[in-house]
């Protein structure tokens, strides 16, 4: 029970950061979404020890462990494009699967290549 309360309080604290981020994004007409600004704000606060890691760690751990849950309503939302999906669904799947495959290969192999080169140059 104490853990649940801790999670709730910490999630509220994290929400305050995204609200602050939204506010900053709006006031300065920034193209970056409030939650990403909130992320940087929290990182800065952690870095300068304005906020202790233990104040947000359990709440953040909970949100990240259940991350997929928060995507499910958007996934259900795909039915809004039912006719598009029926007519072009296969094309969409082909494009997305192929492109995701290419993106993953390029990112993974370039990181792997650069890391190995770095290791070799050290030896």
């Amino acid at each position, binding site marked *: 029970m104490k853990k649940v309360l801790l999670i709730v309080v910490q999630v509220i604290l994290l929400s305050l950061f995204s609200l602050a981020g939204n506010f900053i994004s709006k006031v300065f007409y920034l193209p970056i979404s409030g939650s990403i600004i909130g992320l940087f704000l929290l990182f800065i606060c952690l870095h300068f020890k304005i906020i202790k890691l233990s104040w*947000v760690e359990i709440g953040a751990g909970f949100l*990240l462990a259940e991350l997929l849950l928060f995507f*499910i309503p958007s996934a259900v*939302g795909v039915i809004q494009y039912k006719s598009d999906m029926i007519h072009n669904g296969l*094309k969409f799947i082909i*494009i997305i699967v192929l492109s995701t495959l*290419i993106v993953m290969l390029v990112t993974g192999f370039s990181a*792997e290549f*650069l890391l190995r080169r770095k290791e070799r140059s050290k030896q």
Partner: protein
Amino acid sequence: MTAGFISFIATVAIYYLSKKIYQKKTWVILSPLLIAPVILVALLSITHTTYKSYSSGGQWLTEILQPATVAFAVPLYKYRHILKKQMAVIALSMTAGVTIAFISSDFIARLTHVSPNVILSMLPRSVTTPIAMAVSINIGGIPAMTAAFVIMTGITGIIIGPLLIKWLPINDKLSKGLLLGMGAHGAGTSKALEIGKEEGAAASLAMVIAAVFTLALAPVLMTFLT
């Protein structure tokens, strides 16, 4: 209000149920992001519930994505030494990833003859939903359609990502995490956290960097694509 409340409870209940099944079987096909929406869509059509009344409750969960995005600061902070130590590797491979995400989507989409605004909606699909939708608006796509493609990318990524890691000589924890976080945003990152702490931290980094780089590079890349 009641429909919203029932939708909320049903979504959470089905999510936990599918998560339990997934923990026992761990077949990608049973991933909660794949199976739970399928069950929910079936339930909506059986009970003749419109998506609108479902989303009145579902959006409460979508709202939590905001503090959840903020929560990525925690793994970033905990593993900031990796970020510092491998700055060049991360920056280079992420620039490559973001660039190829736009170019490959554009190229393959053109080959399959989908309409131009669908192509534009598809370009930013590798990054987290709010950023993808913002970029979609900027380049002339349909943001709601982009959200659908982002989800499809997430599902695709958590299926093929672990297979690529298993089959190909990608051995470093950093490379594995960057691959998952760049290829499949938050969904990929949750998969990376499942594999290990360092992979998860790398994927969190990748997700955030992909979002920022996509915002920054989209206008530049668009001048080459149109």
